[in-house]
């Protein structure tokens, strides 16, 4: 259980834009153990999706570049893998579920045709076995009338059903790592509850690792063993799930938890983090959160904090400097 499946070290990614080079990912470190669910939390623009695309090798080739660091998957360096080699991994050992199930399924192919694709790519199977495998997996994700569904098109299914199809597509080749990029954001709450329940069940059956990307702390609280919090292309805090909610060390994490409506008295002013996420080109040499942080002091503006650790609990904040160790309330 303690074997590391995915390790990201000091990852930096640059994008070329019309106005020059920006670096949305600036030194991301984390690792994912076998059988673990790791949550990646952050607001839009924090770089969580870009990180997941880098793991999948799906970054746009011409526009982006991994400028530093490495990604190791299953003891293999996949940082600068050629596309052809990556294709052997994608859909086979690493697969991904996207946010919007309608745009990630092809509208002109039937469900059956789309589901047979990863099997054709990665497994040598007879046509009949393939069909059987597909029906099996559809039943596993709780799709009724699987035999008929394989001849239907995505538009004939509801949002929840489509997301189930996406999950079955990702599961077909028994991946070791499943990346879920906001898998329930586009769904209604009752359907979200169904899908989360399904993912928990599948995870316990298949013993795979989940990388769960979301902005919803409630979903994280339900699903994850460990959490990393991203802000402006960096990991600002990383901790075990209960530890993070009980004892957040970074003011940003603290702010996110405090601004949940359920943690505020009814009808009162909600706690809120002032300002907004800086654009990649706005980040100066200090801490990226300094301009919104209620605890910021001179040092925060002057230089960016390194990562301080208290046991397994990591945070990137000057308040956690050994001689300071301020506990934020």
């Amino acid at each position, binding site marked *: 259980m303690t074997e590391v499946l995915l390790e990201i070290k000091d990852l930096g990614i640059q994008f070329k834009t019309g106005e020059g080079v920006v670096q949305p990912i600036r030194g991301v470190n984390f690792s994912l153990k076998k059988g673990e669910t790791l949550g990646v939390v952050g607001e839009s623009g924090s770089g969580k999706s870009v990180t997941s695309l880098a793991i999948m090798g799906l970054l746009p080739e011409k526009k982006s570049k991994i400028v530093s660091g490495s990604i190791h998957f299953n003891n293999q360096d996949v940082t600068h893998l050629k596309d052809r080699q990556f294709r052997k991994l994608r859909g086979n050992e690493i697969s991904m579920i996207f946010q919007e199930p309608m745009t990630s399924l092809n509208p002109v192919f039937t469900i059956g045709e789309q589901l047979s694709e990863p099997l054709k790519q990665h497994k040598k199977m007879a046509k009949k076995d393939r069909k059987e495998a597909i029906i099996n997996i559809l039943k596993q994700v709780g799709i009724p009338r699987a035999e008929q569904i394989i001849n239907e098109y995505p538009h004939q299914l509801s949002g929840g059903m489509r997301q189930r199809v996406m999950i079955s597509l990702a599961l077909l080749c028994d991946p070791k790592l499943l990346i879920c990029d906001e898998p329930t954001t586009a769904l209604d709450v*009752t359907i979200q509850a169904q899908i*989360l329940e399904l993912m928990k069940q599948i995870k316990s059956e298949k013993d795979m690792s989940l990388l769960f990307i979301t902005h919803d702390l*409630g979903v994280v609280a339900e699903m994850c063993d460990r959490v990393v919090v991203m802000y402006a292309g960096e990991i600002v805090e990383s901790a075990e799930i209960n530890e993070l909610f009980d004892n957040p060390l970074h003011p940003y994490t603290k702010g996110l938890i405090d601004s949940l409506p359920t943690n505020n008295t009814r009808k009162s002013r909600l706690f809120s983090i002032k300002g907004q996420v800086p654009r990649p080109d706005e980040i100066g040499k200090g801490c990226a959160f300094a301009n919104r942080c209620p605890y910021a002091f001179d040092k925060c503006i002057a230089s960016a904090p390194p990562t301080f650790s208290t046991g397994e609990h990591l945070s990137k904040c000057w308040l956690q400097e050994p001689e300071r160790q301020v506990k934020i309330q």
Partner: protein
Amino acid sequence: MTLLEVKNLKKYYEISQGLFKPKVVVKAVDNVSFSIKKGETFALVGESGCGKSTTGKTLLRLTGTTSGEILYKGKDLLALSAEKMRSLRAEMQMVFQDPYASLNPKMTIKQILMEPLRVHNKFQPEERLEKILKILEIVGLSKEHLDRHPNEFSGGQRQRIGIARAVILNPDFIVADEPVSALDVSVQSQVINLMLELQKEFGLTYLFISHDLSVVEHMTDRVAVMYLGKIVELVDTEELFANPKHPYTQALISAVPASHPKEVKERIVLKGDVPNPANPPSGCTFHTRCPFAMDICKSVVPALTEIESGHITSCHLYTNNKEEK
């Protein structure tokens, strides 16, 4: 005091199936009645496709109605001429869900905020700019934003502009259709705070349409839960969350993710999806997914009944055998 009263509101859409085939009727809003008191925040809650947004739009006559009555300060809105309705919209405004789509990308903020003042011919032209600056300051923007276009703003700022546009005419009533669901968590709380402040300052009445129950619990006074075009439960917010009666409401509340990993939630996971509104189930429309469904639910439509004072719900569990549940 009642500000707005909706009686038996219906909005049906007809879908043509071909020249000689009968049309299919989708009952988007089906016999909905409620009233909103002055100064309160009334919430419409439900999943996508339940008719909550359609209800909001019909109140401002942004879409037509099939039948029913909408009384605003005693006046029947549906009987008004288009011109009278337009001048009445100075008192009734709307904030839309998607701040990216609801602002004209070719207009500057100044033009966007000037528009309602010009249409309703409020203030002298010289005074208008002053008024705009004042409202910008209230919503947390400043003078230098005046000549910028919407694309130069972030989602949260755009929603502030949308709110400023609705509030600038000093309306009494605002329909807010999912105003925070497109925003990030940290920005979401800023916008909720702004809406609460404005309500205090201007004595606004909100119709708050949302699917996010934690936000609804935080900021509303009364809630109507909708399912497939019908109201299934209507009660004070605190009572709804403490003591939900309708099985759908119970499931909806239990489906909200926990706010702490140690919080143990007893979850009611509903089977299946929302049925197709063009072909709703017979009897109680919820019976296909209801964990307590009885025989009677399949054939008889339950009526909305007041089971406790001020607590209205439509479910056979409370009308027939009271001892159960």
